[in-house]
């Protein structure tokens, strides 16, 4: 049974529709991402789960019970905000124990919890500092410790890494994932960074314009996007129009075996990394001319002109081809995704 369920959530702000018929269910202990561009309603969704914003319609279930009438302070869904929002007048210790203090937890237990959190977050010795004396990464960890100290049912992370520089972001991402796995706490991560979502999550919900367009494992979303907009969101794509005849997809890129029924017109999506650029002397059925080439160290980004089409390819930079050179394309068709036209 899923631990958290959002059922047909609608939300508008001043006639502007933010969330439209949103459904989502999350299993206990899972880490999922809400992935989408800014303004797509991700943060609003978190606030609705936490109880900071009321939905116009729909229901939220936590452990199979509706929490709509449970006020924010009793709901047990704690957000870690993008800009941390530590209490500036409290020390690290004061921040971490804040929730417990509000719940009138005994001082001794609070101190224990603070100690436990400090060591979990690798913040030992920092407890008497004020937030303005900490670095970005430390503030982030204090914010996380403050949220975890109240032992929430659900941890909500609102773009938690976007204020950190690149290297720290990776470290913190690993760190948060390891803490999440250790505590097995149900976590929803909001992000606009697809790499972040792919690397951290058990499942990803793609949100576009207030709707969840697809919800599945990172692999499913990347390899089998159910629509073009989802495919496009995950990066570069090639679309080829063709038709299926007797189990063969016939297209300008070549003929590929398929299990699909005969159709007159079909669009195939193929990722650039499934198309490898090789020397023209290697025998393949597809040949084209390089029109653009970008060197990215370990990879090459090519644009190939072929029968009036522009095809994108990402190849390993073992052999480098120049603009204007004729090349052969080796296409791996098993990850092709077909859409109706």
């Amino acid at each position: 049974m899923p631990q958290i369920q959002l059922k047909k959530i609608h939300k508008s702000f001043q006639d502007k529709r933010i969330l439209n018929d949103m459904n989502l269910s999350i299993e206990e202990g899972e880490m999922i991402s809400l992935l989408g561009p800014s303004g797509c309603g991700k943060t609003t969704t978190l606030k609705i789960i936490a109880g900071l914003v009321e939905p116009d319609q729909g229901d939220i279930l936590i452990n199979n019970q509706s929490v709509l009438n449970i006020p924010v302070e009793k709901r047990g869904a704690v957000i870690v905000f993008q800009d941390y929002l530590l209490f500036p007048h409290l020390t690290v210790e004061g921040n971490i124990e804040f929730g417990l203090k509000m719940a009138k937890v005994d001082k001794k237990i609070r101190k224990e919890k603070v100690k436990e959190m400090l060591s979990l977050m690798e913040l030992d010795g920092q407890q008497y500092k004020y937030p303005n004396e900490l670095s970005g990464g430390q503030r982030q960890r204090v914010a996380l410790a403050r949220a975890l100290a109240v032992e929430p049912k659900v941890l909500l992370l609102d773009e938690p890494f976007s204020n950190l520089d690149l290297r720290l972001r990776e470290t913190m991402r690993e760190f948060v994932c390891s803490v999440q796995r250790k505590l097995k706490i149900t976590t929803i991560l909001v992000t606009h960074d697809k790499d972040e979502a792919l690397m951290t999550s058990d499942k990803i919900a793609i949100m576009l314009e207030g709707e969840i367009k697809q919800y599945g494992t990172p692999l499913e979303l990347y390899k089998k996007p159910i629509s073009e907009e989802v495919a496009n969101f995950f990066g570069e794509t090639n679309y080829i129009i063709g038709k299926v005849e007797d189990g063969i997809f016939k297209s300008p890129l070549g003929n590929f075996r398929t299990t699909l029924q005969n159709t007159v017109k079909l669009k195939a999506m193929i990722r650039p990394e499934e198309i490898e650029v090789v020397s023209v002397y290697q025998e393949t059925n597809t040949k084209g001319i390089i029109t653009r080439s970008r060197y990215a160290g370990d990879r090459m980004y090519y644009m190939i002109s072929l029968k009036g089409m522009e095809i994108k390819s990402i190849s390993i930079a073992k052999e480098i081809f120049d603009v204007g050179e004729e090349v052969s394309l080796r296409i791996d068709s098993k990850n092709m995704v077909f859409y109706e036209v």
Partner: protein
Amino acid sequence: MKKTIKPYIMLLPAMTILLGIFVAGLSMAFLQSLGYFPTIGLQEFTLNYYKEVLTDHGFLTSLRFSLWIAFVSSSVSVVLGVLLAYSIVKSKHKKGLEEIVYKLPVIVPHVVATLLVYNILGQSGIIARMAYALGFISQQSEFPALLFDKNGFGIILAYVWKGTPFIAMVVYTVLSNMNNRLSEVALNLGATNKQVFWHVLIPLTMPSIFSSFIIIFAFSFGAYEVPFLIGPTAPRALPVQAYAEYMNADLRHRPYTMTINMVLTFISFLCIWIYHKTFKLLNKYNG
């Protein structure tokens, strides 16, 4: 060289007035309080005036009375002002009118505020008249003497009427500029609205609450017109006492006046020092 001296030269006109009048006045008062007043033949420095004044029962009663008025009126203003500011911030509807109305008493001079209190609370004031019309009292003297009473009720009321909106103005500005999301965070961590108020909003506004408390405290401690107009004859507020001594035709009273003034000045400086310290506190977690 030219560059370093230039700002000082440019500040000179303002500083002449500021330092000239302030420092000269203050040093003269200080010298006179020490018994140095050559105009009337007093040439010897002595601490006797301080000794006399500081042990004088009348002076101590006045000092206590002034401190009482200042403390009570400022404290009441702070409590009311903070509540007023908080309720304006919290109120959901449009804030056009209420943002202006509550500030009005700030621009009304203290003398006018005193007259208002006089007209409302006096034994011949509006409330007394209403009580008479409704048959609660049958003559003027039955109405409690709220003005000129020895607890300074009327004075305190006038100061509260002036002080509350001032505090509210300061606190409202701080509260409305404060990150509203900190309250959300606190709620999210399980705090009730009351706890948010006490554990987040109050501590964060405390430095400004405290410094505005000091401002109105220092003012109501040192100002003279309100207790002069609606204060009791005994005990007199310290500034009124100083004024009366100053107006004494016998110039030999002057050193006493100046001693009282020095005490007033000392307490005011103390307030400035505390004010300064609270700003440091503010910077501790905002810097």
